[in-house]
C-alpha cells in the first residue's frame, strides 16, 4: 500500500514538474497552494474551477462578439482583460499571453488577427483545463489513498 502511495505521489510530482516545464503553470499556482490549508482544503480547486467556468463563458462571448457586423473591439479588449487577469492569478501564463496578444489585435482593430488569436486562446484554455483536471485527479487519488500532497517546487531550467 505504501509503495503504491509513494508511486502515486511520485507520478503527481512528475506531472506537476512537466506542467511547469511546458509553461502551462507557473509559480503563481504554487502560491495558491501555499494558501490552501485545513480551514479551506478545496481552495485551489475552487479558485481554478471559477477560472475555468468564467473563461469558458468569456471565450463564448468573444466568439459571438467577433462575428458581429460592427465588432466592438473595446468590449472585446475588456473581455480579454478579464481573462488575462484571472489566468494570471491562477498561474496559467500561456493563456495570459494569448490574451495579451489578442488585446493588441483589438487595439489595432485587426479582426483577422483577433479571430486567429481567439483560436489560440481557446487552444491554450482547453490545454490548461485538461491538464488541471488531470492534476486534480491525481491529487484526489493520493488523498484517497491516505497520502498528503507533496510540496512542489518548479524545476527552474535556468538554474
Amino acid at each position, binding site marked *: 500500500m505504501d509503495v503504491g502511495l509513494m508511486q502515486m505521489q511520485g507520478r503527481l510530482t512528475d506531472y506537476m514538474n512537466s506542467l511547469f516545464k511546458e509553461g502551462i503553470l507557473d509559480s503563481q499556482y504554487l*502560491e495558491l497552494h501555499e494558501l490552501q490549508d485545513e480551514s479551506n482544503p478545496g*481552495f485551489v480547486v475552487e479558485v481554478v474551477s471559477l477560472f475555468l467556468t*468564467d473563461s469558458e463563458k468569456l471565450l463564448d462571448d468573444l466568439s459571438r462578439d467577433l462575428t458581429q457586423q460592427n465588432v466592438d473591439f473595446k468590449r472585446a479588449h475588456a473581455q480579454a482583460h478579464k481573462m488575462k487577469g484571472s489566468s494570471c*492569478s491562477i498561474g496559467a501564463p500561456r493563456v495570459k499571453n494569448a490574451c495579451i496578444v489578442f488585446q493588441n489585435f483589438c487595439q489595432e482593430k485587426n479582426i483577422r488577427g483577433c479571430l486567429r488569436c481567439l483560436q489560440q486562446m481557446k487552444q491554450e484554455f482547453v490545454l490548461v483545463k485538461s491538464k488541471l483536471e488531470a492534476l486534480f485527479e491525481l491529487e484526489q487519488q493520493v488523498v484517497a489513498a491516505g497520502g498528503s500532497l507533496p510540496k512542489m517546487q518548479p524545476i527552474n531550467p535556468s538554474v
Partner: protein
Amino acid sequence: MTMAGEILRRQSPAEVDVCGGSAQELHVLAVDDSLVDRKVIEKLLKRLSCKVTAVDSGLRALQYLGLDGEKSSVGFDDLKVNLIMTDYSMPGMTGYELLKKIKESSAFRETPVVIMSSERILARINRCLEEGAEEFLAKPVKLSDVERLKNFVMGGGEVCSDRRINKRRLEENNDRDDGHAPSPVSPPCSCDRAACTSSSSDSSSPSIAPSSSKRLKIHHQG
C-alpha cells in the same frame, strides 16, 4: 505637497489600537470586480489573520464606507477599516476614481489605499501615487506583499521593496528629468529609507515620453 518620506513613515499605532477585533487584527476592505481575484486576496488576508470585507465594485466600496451620499444608519465609530486594497481596472468606477473619493472624505482620507493592477502603466502609477495611494502593487499579489503591507499599516514595517513602486524614487526621478516621465522602476532600495537621497544616477534606465501609452516591458519577477 507633503514629502514622500513623511507619508511613507506615517505610522498610526493609535489607529491599530481601536481597530475591529483584537488590537492586532487589521480590517481590510478589498475591492475587485474579478471573483477569482477577490477569492485570492481574501485568502491572502485571512492567512495573515486580517478581517476582510470584499466587494466587487468601487460603488459598493463607497456604499460600505458610507461615502456614497446616502444617509447611513451605520455609526462610523463602529466602522474601522485599516487598509483599502483596490484593483485599478474596474468597470464603472476605476480604482483611481475610488481612491480620489476616499481621499476627499474626512472619515477615510487617512486610511492607506493600495492599488493593484496586472498592468504597469507608468502614467497610471504616477497618477495613483500622486493622488495619495500608499502603494501600487503588481498583480498577482503575493503573500509577501500583503505581509509587508500589514507590517507597514501596523507601524514599523519595511517599506522599500523591489516589487513596489517607491513613491520617493518616482518623485526624485521626476525632479531629475525636469517634467519628463520618470524612469521605470529602479533597482531595489537597500539603503535606510531616511537616508535615501536622489543620488541614484540610473542613466541606463530608459525614459518614456509622457504621451506614450506603451506598456512598460518590465520583467515581472516570479
